[in-house]
């Protein structure tokens, strides 16, 4: 399969919107730096969708249970209705915020806005989830892990 044109076009458009040298791509994904945050775009070929996501944190394994609870608590109906998802991958020691969009949306201004939204929402989400997780881990009789320290 040739390099997906959608990713080539998308990363070029990102350079125009977010600045020269901010974006790049490879066989199955693209990325763009927005402020201090890197937003990744991966193609979901089975469903003809694309995933736009960014890391919220790579915490110590001991803190995961609190982070998972905090992530679920953060996922309000309003957040879900806007298409955002907070997920945790224990295998990769990763907590992320992302959204799945149709691939066709990558080719227009709306796609760039969706990417920008992920970076903005991630700043809020990372702070809120860290706060909730820390509160849970400090609760008497609560989690057995050490306090979760989140760096942003």
């Amino acid at each position, binding site marked *: 399969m040739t390099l997906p044109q959608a990713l080539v076009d998308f990363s070029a458009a990102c350079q125009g919107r977010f600045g020269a040298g901010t974006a790049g791509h490879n066989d199955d994904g693209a990325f763009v730096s927005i402020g201090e945050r890197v937003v990744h775009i991966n193609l979901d070929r089975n469903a003809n*969708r694309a995933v736009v996501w960014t890391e919220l944190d790579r915490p110590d394994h001991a803190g995961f249970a609190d982070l998972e609870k905090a*992530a*679920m608590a953060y996922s309000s109906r309003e957040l879900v209705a806007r298409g955002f998802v907070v*997920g945790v991958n*224990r295998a990769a020691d990763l907590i992320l915020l992302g959204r*799945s969009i149709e691939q066709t949306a990558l080719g227009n201004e709306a796609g760039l806005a969706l990417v920008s939204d992920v970076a903005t929402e991630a700043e809020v989400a990372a702070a809120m989830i860290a706060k909730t997780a820390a509160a849970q881990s400090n609760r008497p009789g609560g989690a057995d892990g050490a306090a979760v320290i989140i760096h942003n």
Partner: protein
Amino acid sequence: MSTDNSRFAEFVAECCKVLELEAPAATGDSHMFQVGDRWIELKADDSGEGVSFAAMVYMKPADTEIRADLVASFNVHYLFNGGFSLFFDTATDRLYLCRPHRLDTLEARNIREELIAFADMAAHAGTWYIRSSEEQAAGTRAALPSGETGNFIEV
């Protein structure tokens, strides 16, 4: 902030026509379709350009906790495999399967297949959640050799 739901209302009306249902008099930002014994809600987002599908997959009994580890791992897995996510509504103690779409990418003529596929996924997600939560008691689970945190269902 007022929201323009005219595109959503138009889409719902087209879907009703395709499904040979009577179009609703007023759509607002939400419309429910029934597939078998399952209700699927289509809800417009604030921008008026997006719509999310949602269906209940599990109702939490009073004496149990929702397994945040299962929900969080499902959400990262299916974010990359179809764009599905689970959402726990604390107000109703219900777990919902959701999937967002952009209105300009949906075709009303495919709505029947979309709804049936979503209802199937909701049924599978409910079964997966119940089985996984029964098989692996919270706090006793070690990481599987593969590094996966659960036995994910197939899309």
